Structures are given as C-alpha cells and as structure tokens.
C-alpha cells in the first residue's frame, strides 16, 4: 500500500514540476495545484499509515501499546490543504486578471520592458 502511495506522490510531484515549467499560465496553476497535493500525500505517507486503528486509548488502559493511526500528520495535512486552497483561489483570480491585462496565455511574452519606470 505504501509503495502505491509513494509512487502516486512521486507522480504528482513530477507532473506538478513539469507543468510549472510550461509556457501557459493555466498549466502553471495546475502544476502548482498538483505539487501541493503531492506534498500533502507525502506528509500522510510519512506518518506511517495504519488501517483501522484510531488513536483512542481504551478506558481501562493508560497508554496506547498497539500501533495506531498518527493524528498529527492528519492535522498537518488539513492545515496544508486549507492553505493551498486559499493560495489556489488567489492564483486563479490572479491569472484571470493577468490574462485580461497582458492579453496572452504565453508566459514567454510576459516581459514588459520597464526601461523607463
């Protein structure tokens, strides 16, 4: 299971980085989204996944001796998802506005010569 998730994470990172290097503004944003998701999946993976064992100590014990699903990476991922959601929302509006102003989707043409500014 871990191997599958690790492969998925690698694919997401690779796809994200590839898309960030493309010439199109829209592909840039999609690349950023994929990269963020890859990072979230990585945090999940590195918290040692365990199926079906919530981290709740039973009433008659004082310590959790069994393997349990680590809640800290889940909290980290939730925070990261919320943050990247906010960033993506901003990014989409930014490229929409930038497209209106520079009138092209091609990043190579976004190079205003600001000699006289």
């Amino acid at each position, binding site marked *: 299971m871990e191997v599958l998730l690790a492969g998925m994470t690698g694919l997401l990172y690779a796809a994200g980085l590839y898309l960030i290097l493309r010439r199109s503004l829209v592909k840039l944003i999609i690349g950023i989204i994929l990269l963020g998701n890859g*990072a979230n999946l990585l945090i999940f993976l*590195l*918290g040692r996944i365990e199926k079906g064992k919530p981290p709740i100590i039973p009433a008659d014990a004082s310590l959790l001796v069994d393997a349990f699903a680590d809640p800290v990476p889940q909290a*980290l991922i939730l925070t990261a998802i919320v943050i990247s959601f906010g960033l993506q929302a901003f990014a989409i509006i*930014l490229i929409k*506005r930038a497209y209106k*102003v520079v009138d092209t989707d091609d990043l190579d043409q976004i190079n205003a010569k600001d*000699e006289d500014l």
Partner: protein
Amino acid sequence: MSAQFIILPLLVHFASAVVLLFFWGNTRIQRLLSVAGHAVSLAVAVALFVLVRQSGIQVVQLGDWAAPFGITLVADMLAATLVLLTALLGFAVAIHASGSLGELRLTFGFFPIMHFLLLGLSGAFLAGDVFNLYVWFEIIIISSFVLITLGGERLQLEGAVKYFTLNVLASVVFLTAVAFLYGLAGTLNMADLAVKVPQLNNQSLVRVSALLFFIGFGIKSAVFPMYFWLPASYHAPPSAVSAIFAGLLTKVGVYALIRMFSLVFAADTLLFEILVWIAAATLFAGGVGALVEKNISRIFSYFIICHIGYMVAGLGMLTEAALAGAVFYLVHDIPVKANLFLGAGLVRKLRGTANIHKLGGLYAAYPVLALLLAVPLFSVAGIPPLSGFWPKLSLILSGIDTSRYALIGFMLFGSFITLFVVARLWAEAFWKNSPENAPDPGQAEYPGLNAQQRRLILAPIILLAAVSLYIGFGAEHVQQLANGIAGDLLAPQAYIQAVLK
C-alpha cells in the same frame, strides 16, 4: 509581565487588522487607526525586547499543552530583536503609505493587509514549532501577494505571477522538508528536534531534509541560484510595498535558515560548507546584477540579493564572531534596505522617472533631501562609521580566523561592487546636470503634494535614517547584542531548557 506577553505583538496586529476591516472605504479613519495600531505594536515590541533582555528566554505553550506536544512560541534575543525591527518598519512604512499611496489602493484594503503581513512576520520570528513556522510563512506570502497586486497595473500583475510561482514552490519544498523531518523524528517542536535529530540513525535522510529546508528557505531569501524572482517582482509595486518587502521578507528566510541550521542541523558540516559557497556565489551574482541595471529600484533589488550573501556567509562559517556578524548584518540591513526603497520612491516622485540615465541635478535642486538619501546609500556601501561597515568587519575577521580566503575575496568584491554602483548612482542621479531626455520636473508628483503629504512621505525616511545612524555610531551596543545572540545560537542548551523545561 508574565511570559504570556509574547502573544501581545501578534494580538495587536490581528486586532488592528480586524478593526480596520470595519472601516473599509474610509481611508481617513484607516490611516489614523493603522498608524495608531503600528505605534502600539512598536511599544509592545520594545517592551518585549526589554523583557527578554532582563528576564531571559520567554516561552509560551499555546493552549497550555506541554512541549513537545503543543505549539510553542519562543522569544529569545534574536526573535525579540527582529520583532522590534519588524514593528519599527511597519510603523515607518504605514506613515509613508498614508502620504504616498493613491486613494484607490488605500480604499481596497492596503492597511489591513499590511497588518496581516506584520502579524505573519512577528509570528514567524516567534515560532517554536516548525509547522507553525510554515503557517506563519503562508500568512506572510498570502498578504504579500495581495500587496504586490494591489493596484492592478500591468507591471504589478506580471511581477506578481513570477513572485507567486516561486514563493508557492518554496512553500511546497518547505512542506516536503517538514514531512521528511516529521517522518524521521516524530516531532516538530524545534527544541525537541534539536535533541532528537543528532541521535537519529538515518543521518543521510536527515541531510536530505536539511537540504530541502535550505532550498525552501533559500528561495525565500533569494540566494544563488534561486534569486531570479526578486529582480523580476520587487520593483513593480509602489515604493511603500517594496520597502516592507525589501526590509523584511527575505530576512525571514535568513532568520529561518539561522534558526533551523544552528538549532536542528548544527552537526552537519557539509551543509555549512555548501552555505559558504552559495553565499560567495550570491555575493558575486547580486553584485554583477546591480552593475547592469539602470532602474534605481532594480539596482536596489540586486543589492538585496548581494547582501543576503553576507548573512548566509556568516551562518556558514558558524563561529561566534561570524554569527555575530550575520546577526549585526540583519539588524543593519532591515532599516537600510527599506529606506533605500522609500528613497527610490521619493526620487521617482521628485523627477517622474527612476532611470538613472534620465535623472540628474537632484543635489542641486533638493540638497537636504539628497543628503538624507545619502545616509542609506552610504550605509549600504559600508562606509565607516555608518552601519554597514561594522558587520562586514566582523565577517572578514572571522573569515581570516577560519582561513576562508576565497570567501573574504567574494565579500570584498561584493563590497566594492556595492560602493561602485552607489557612487555611480550618486554621480548620475544627484551630481550630474539633468540630461536632455529627462521628463519635465514640473510634471512630477512631488511639487503637487501638499505639506502634510510631504511630511508623511519624508518622516519615515528620516526615522529610518536616524535608526541607521544610531546603529552605525552606537555600533558597540549592537555588537554586544549580536555577540550575545551568537553565543546563544551556538549553545542552544538554554533555548532547549526553556522550552522543554
């Protein structure tokens, strides 16, 4: 004053931002409230500095969860100094923005967003937990995205796309590093990491995590070869925004590097060797970049990059004198870089252009203003006894002590190039007569401003120049402070003790 006092800088900025949101559209009240909020935060930052100076490291466990399980806020001398400088810069730039920014930008939320930015900055300096540091970094960059695009001019939007992409990439790399570190160590509290990381078995993966931290923070600090977003974006927004960016955003990256590398990864000598060489390359690249630029703001952008090299070099050498030099350089650099960008904005208002080949005769027309702008220009060049000289001296002396003669060569090169570019800037913009293709000075903005606006624009420049002069002439105090901080950084037992108790 209990240790809970640490939260106060964050609360003041948050409360100011929320209160300002209720006055959306009313720029007069926003100006007053924002400057008042910054004044309060400056007072609180001074009080925090005095508290940490007198009573040692202050620690707060949020929600009363004991470390290392909860989130910790730690104010040691380095954090308190940087929070103080942040508050000072916020105060100065808020006053400048009241006079210099157009009504539309102020109407659409400049002041609340600036408070959020300072909230993020203060939180980043006070964070004692790596993921908390990530969250504060995200608050910083989101606020900075809004500030850089506020106004919607074409130049701003283009700069914002590049700025956004590189900063988000840096955040993702940072998050990856955090993931690795958590997977290896099982904790994210910095003090706990300082104890656990040197004892881990898998030191090569620890090195991978450290390198990822270096890349993430390196992109944010604009070191070589990850600095190209800075000259592409910092000159685009208005000068008040550029000033706060230049003074603080790259310095948070340097602070994070210093904190993580001296606390958690201190045992790995290869990393510090890499830091030294990267610093040398940054000094060279920043210096050479500044040589070819004609736009004043872009020259100053390359100065930011060049001088980051000094701080990273101090961190890389990892001796007490080198770290003291790096910290002194931080303290010197924050007001000077902000003042440079405020000055660039002033020059543009005076003459309508920031192109040095179209400027001229500024000293003849405005002698007092020219002398005022001379203070940050000569400070950044490192002319004794102004503030830029003393940390360079510390760094070069510690370079001799550690036999890093190539690094000293690069430091001297950076210094020489900065001096050369400043001298050329002074000759072009201030001394020579106005050239034929200069825009009509009557059309410039400055003559049209009323006395109140002129005072608002000039007062922060005077304030920051006075701070730079104090740092330069009172260098002994700052050097003692820096020595104390460097000693604390190299012997983190007090920090670990205070947090983990």
